[in-house]
């Protein structure tokens, strides 16, 4: 069965490109445009992995990550944080909040796919 990926970003064009990319790799994909929608989609869609943007209206990626990690039922959920802010403190904060990986924008599509596949395979 195909692994399920939830893409969360407030930039429609980035959502378009990520959706296309992940679908092409054969994943089952759902999208969300802000933090609140992301939490709702996680509950409804039950993804294996979330690609999570940090800077979003309503609820930031950090808040979403924290909320997801607080839910023991989602213990196996993989979270990859995406951020356009490349500062070390942001990376450290994401990891501290329980993200499994941290990718800075703009990213290489090849590397992102490799990372996602690797994580889902492990």
């Amino acid at each position, binding site marked *: 069965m195909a692994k399920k990926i939830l893409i969360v970003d*407030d930039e429609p064009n980035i959502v378009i490109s990520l959706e296309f990319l992940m679908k092409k790799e054969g994943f089952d994909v759902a999208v969300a445009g802000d933090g609140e929608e992301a939490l709702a989609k996680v509950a409804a869609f039950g993804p294996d992995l979330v690609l999570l943007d940090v800077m979003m209206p309503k609820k930031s990626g950090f808040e979403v990550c924290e909320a997801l990690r607080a839910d023991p039922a989602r213990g196996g959920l993989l979270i990859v944080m995406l951020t356009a802010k490349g500062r070390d403190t942001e990376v450290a904060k994401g990891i501290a909040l329980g993200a499994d990986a941290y990718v800075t924008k703009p990213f290489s599509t090849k590397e992102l796919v490799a990372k996602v596949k690797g994580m889902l395979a492990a």
Partner: protein
Amino acid sequence: MLSPGLILLVSAAYMGLLFAVARFGDARADAGRSIITANVYALSLAVYCTSWTFYGSVGRATSGGLSFLTIYIGPTLMLLFAGVIVKMIRIAKTQRLTSIADFIAARYGKSQLLAGLVTVIAVIGIVPYIALQLKAVAASLDVLIGKEGAGYLPAMFDSTLIIAALLALFTILFGTRHLDATERHEGMVAAVAFESVVKLVAFVAVGLFVTYGMFGGFAELFQRAAATPGLERLLQLDSAKAGTWAALILLSGLAIIFLPRQFQIIVVENVDESHLRRAVWLFPLYLVLINIFVLPLALGGLLHFQGQTFNPDTFVLTLPLARGAETLALLVFIGGLSAATGMVIVETIALSTMVCNDLVMPWLLRTRRFGVAEREDLSGLLLGIRRVAIVAILLLGYIYFRAAGEAYALVGIGLISFAAVAQFAPAVFGGMYWKQGTHAGAVAGLLGGFAVWLYTLLLPSFAKSGWIDKGFVENGLFGIGALKAQALFGLAGLDEISHSLWWSLFVNIGLYVAVSLWSRPDAVEAGQAERFVDVFKHAGRGTDARLWRGTASAEELVGLLDRFLGRPRARQQLANYAAGRGLDDWRSLPVDAEFVRFAETQLSGAIGSASARVMVASVAKEEDLGLDEVLDILDEATQVRAYSRELEAKQQELEAATAELREANERLRELDRMKDDFISTVTHELRTPLTSIRALSEMLHEDPEIDVDDRTRFLGIIVNEAERLTRLINQILDMAKLESGRAEWTTGEVDVAAIVREAMDSVGQLFRDKAVALEGEIPDSVPAVLADRDRLTQVMINLLSNAVKFVAGGSGRVKVRVVAGERALRVEVIDNGPGLTPEECVVIFEKFRQGGNTMTDKPQGTGLGLPISRQIVEYFGGNLWVESSPGAGATFVFTVPLPAHE
């Protein structure tokens, strides 16, 4: 009437009690556990209230109404200058000064002449005052015993002489028990404080008895007085007497410090400067309490004894006796006795110290006849001299009392004494605050003031008693009208006290200042002037030590101390001093300037500063320092102080600079943090479009198989995002230029209406594309403003494209209004979009903060348009803001000021 035996017994018992209090105080002082607290100190100040207060105030009130109060207002006001008194105490302590004569003499070069002069003035001024106390006690005895008791003593012993003798004995026991280097008598102070309580209790008791026992309280008493002819005037303030009041207030204010007994209690007997803080309010409170019943007693006496001739000075006794309250009368007598004895004891001790140190000792030391200079131990002799002086002063008082009797010269003698000691004021205050005051000036001022006092006050009082011819009072000396003793140079219309006070102080101050300015101080004087005026600054002894140069032998100096202080006391002081310098044994003390100064200070305590100076000079081989040298040293000390002040100022400056730097650093840090945030935000904004561009182009690049629809869509996104990136970069650069002030402006007269119309035309296509209505309400012509045409166009286009972005397609409407106001042009861009919350109305003007918050209508802006527009408008002196609420559309307004009218 009371039996003489009973009165004698009670008086003796009371005196015994006083003595016990004094012994207790002395014993505690010797044990190092002083009983002189702030309260005791404040109460002891009430030695100011003598029998003159106790009996005389009521007498004065019967004739002068409220004017008796001036004698108590003056001291209260004087105590407000606590700083002056503290300085006086500090000077007296550091210099070991033991009397007012010593104080003045020490300041002006330790002058024996001045010390003697002040002593003579004090004795002449005070002896009548002591006579007054004797008279008061004698008079009160007479009232108490009554006519039928007369003859209880053999005629050769009159009661006043016995009282004087007893007081002398008592004073000797109190005041000359031993010779103390500090000349403090804690036992005496304790006894005086005790007496203050007794006289207050006695006076208040008789006041209550008369006011509430004989009359129905204050109200009734005053009503009856007001209704009685001749009495109503006592209740009113007489404005014609204002000059007298001022003189009396000044006089009593000076007396509270300069009467020898007051100087003794306030300055010499002070153990702790902080006690003064208590005295400043407690002593005035005491004065208020003891004065509350003065007027009621006066009125009560006048009402009760209407038509009879009774001495109003004895109302406090005769009123209770008239009602048969003999016990109360006895208590009042004891109160009066307290008032008299307290005054006599302290005054006599103070005067005897002055007479001994400043008159007798210098003379004895100079005449070889008695071999005083060679004697081994002089401390016994010193005590002997003081005891003789005490007896002599009281004897003088008694003689004066006998001679003056009921004569005029004893009436109001208190004020005459006050006026005498007021002569010390210029020399003392000048000496404390004016370094230029000299010995010659002080002598001239004192002599002049004293002479005027003698001529205008004391001698006329003798004349009125009939002892000398009245000619100089009535016709002037040698018949010269200008020299009339109580209308000097035609100054008539004042009462005699004011007249004498103004003239004597005028002459005194005038001579003091003029002669001081004209004369030059000698070396010792200049040094002392420095020590007095700058007493608070002389913390160290460095200057003091350098002001003495010479050689001395320890043996001789110690010998001096032994002789004047007595061996045990001298050795004890030496040991204390050595311990203070960190030495175990005083024999190892170096005989340096500091040691000589110590010896001199110790001697000052015993024999006064002037004599001490002479004695030290006699055993030490001193080099004379010239005045110039002394002034140099003092100048140097002043310079060192100036340097240290400068350093202090520099340090403060440095501290201020450091604080400023720290603040600046904080600001820089804050700016740095903001810049950091800005860069981080800019980075984010740049990376976001880049992310789409890179991801999509990589996919297109790697997968040629992507179908045409997707390919076209992706390429369209890439183009849009690239455009967005370009816009962003341009605006960031624009913003940076505006903020750093490097933007180029071409300012000229512009027609805002035309600019608005052009801007509307250039964005017309955007509106048509989205089917949004755009209308204008623009006057044909508006006043020209000074601005940059392109920049204003930029603002308009920004506002219009924002508007079209946020309104709904189809139903959206945008309206532009231009209004010419009085001071500015106002441009409004009104839309019917979703509106803004109050918070949003603020944040949209911050960089990279955009309105709109859902993915679907994510604005395609950079978040820099409004901040840039605001910068531009503000550059021209206008404002840009938004008026909006959610659901009600938004109105963006900017103003451009009109050029000021010529």
